[in-house]
């Protein structure tokens, strides 16, 4: 219980844990979809405070980690072109491509810039009309409204030297893919709270019913996660499988209607390959026909991409919850945040990075 006093409200954490222990009669396997939740769980040792039979399986909800290798290589090729200013969230800088990363491309002289918001990239485009400004539009449903707005504004303002390299992914098709896998052990999901802040909760009841899994919309702070786990276990023990919202302060059933309207205008559903996992039908967004002129993939016809993953990296199994990071032979040895073999070791949402940052010393003592 060494971590409990680090909670913002240890008394409330204690009560929630007591309730979870009291209601649990047998083992359950819960998946937290979002990598932000994975980090919170590992950082605060929540998995170690739970009843012994309750396993937290870490899900694929790390957008940096699942951005396909081919798309990373394409980004690197575009960024290296002299007329291009390549803008990205900082998280993408050290994600390994087949032979290098954005950080290395910048060191070699490319104009790579980190922005806080996609609108910052649009401003850079307006300030540099003689250059091509490309924004790497990755992420789940949470970042999509921001990327959509940047493209919408580019079109509205006639900023023709701006384009988006789109690699958006969606949570509900990933939940379906996980449940369809023959190796699936997941019995319930903690759904990502802020995805639902945007999208609402209405996509999830059909999934809960089809796969007989409780789905509980959960926030990101330790107490939110404990409450999400508590509601999930109560459902499992009662044999129920419903959608519940354990994060009502930031999630409304209808989501954000204005963001949803923008998403429907700018994006359309497409099949998407997830790094380490493979193609999941209907699991991504690409620009709709109305905005296709702003698609960097079409503007920069990069050819000759030959992807090559590290033969040692098992991040695909980690992302599918089939392997804990420390069970990979390369973890902490050939693969560290300084020399990452896979994206899960560098991202602030990656499960391998979480284990390395918060549990490396414990793991060394055990082994």
């Amino acid at each position, binding site marked *: 219980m060494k971590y409990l006093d680090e909670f*913002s409200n240890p008394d409330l954490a204690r009560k929630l844990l007591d309730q979870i222990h009291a209601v649990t009669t047998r083992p359950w396997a819960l998946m937290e979809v979002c990598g932000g939740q994975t980090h919170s769980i590992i950082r605060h040792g929540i998995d170690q405070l739970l009843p012994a039979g309750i396993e937290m399986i870490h899900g694929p909800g790390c957008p*940096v980690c699942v951005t396909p290798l081919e798309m990373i290589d394409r980004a690197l090729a575009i960024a290296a072109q002299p007329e291009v200013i390549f803008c990205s969230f900082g*998280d993408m800088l050290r994600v390994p491509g087949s032979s290098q990363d954005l950080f290395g491309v910048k060191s070699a002289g490319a104009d790579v810039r980190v922005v*806080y918001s996609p*609108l910052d990239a649009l401003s850079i485009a307006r300030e540099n009309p003689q250059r091509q400004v490309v924004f790497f539009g990755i992420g789940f449903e949470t*970042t999509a409204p921001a990327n959509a707005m940047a493209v919408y504004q580019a079109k*509205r303002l006639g900023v023709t030297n701006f384009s988006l390299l789109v690699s958006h992914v969606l949570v509900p098709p990933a939940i379906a893919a996980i449940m369809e896998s023959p190796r699936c052990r997941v019995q319930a999901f903690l759904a990502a709270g802020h995805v639902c802040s945007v999208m609402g909760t209405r996509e999830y009841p059909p999934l809960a019913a089809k796969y007989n899994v409780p789905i509980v919309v959960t926030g990101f702070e330790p107490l939110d996660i404990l409450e999400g786990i508590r509601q999930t276990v109560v459902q499992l023990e009662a044999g129920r499988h419903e959608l519940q919202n354990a994060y009502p302060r*930031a999630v409304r059933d209808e989501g954000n209607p204005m963001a949803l309207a923008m998403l429907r205008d700018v994006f359309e559903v497409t099949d998407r390959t997830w790094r380490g996992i493979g193609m999941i039908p209907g699991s991504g967004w690409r620009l709709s026909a109305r905005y296709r002129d702003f698609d960097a993939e079409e503007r920069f016809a990069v050819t000759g991409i030959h992807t090559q993953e590290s033969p040692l990296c098992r991040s695909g199994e980690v992302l599918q919850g089939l392997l804990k990071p420390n069970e990979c032979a390369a973890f902490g040895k050939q693969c560290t945040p*300084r020399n990452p073999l896979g994206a899960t070791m560098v991202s602030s949402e990656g499960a391998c990075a979480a284990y390395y940052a918060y549990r490396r010393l414990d793991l060394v003592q055990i082994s």
Partner: protein
Amino acid sequence: MCLAVPGRILSIAEVDGTLMAEVDFGGVRKNVCLQYTPDAAVGEYVVVHVGFAIQHLDEASAQETLANFERLGILNDEFGDGFTRAAEQAGVDQ
């Protein structure tokens, strides 16, 4: 990038036909787009994701979250310089 941070709206202005706000995140100030929460008012708290307010939040919840993030050093991860962080992680001098 994937983190949503609550912030307090300090001022609101229309820029190129787009509703923008200056938002305070526990001392760090950023320009934030309010197009998705157009009824948010000065003094209110919103949940902000990569420069966009995506939902309203009550003051008590927002302040508690900000205090936690501050305590855990998460605000620096979100708002600090990306290249500095990447260089530290890579173990190279810039």
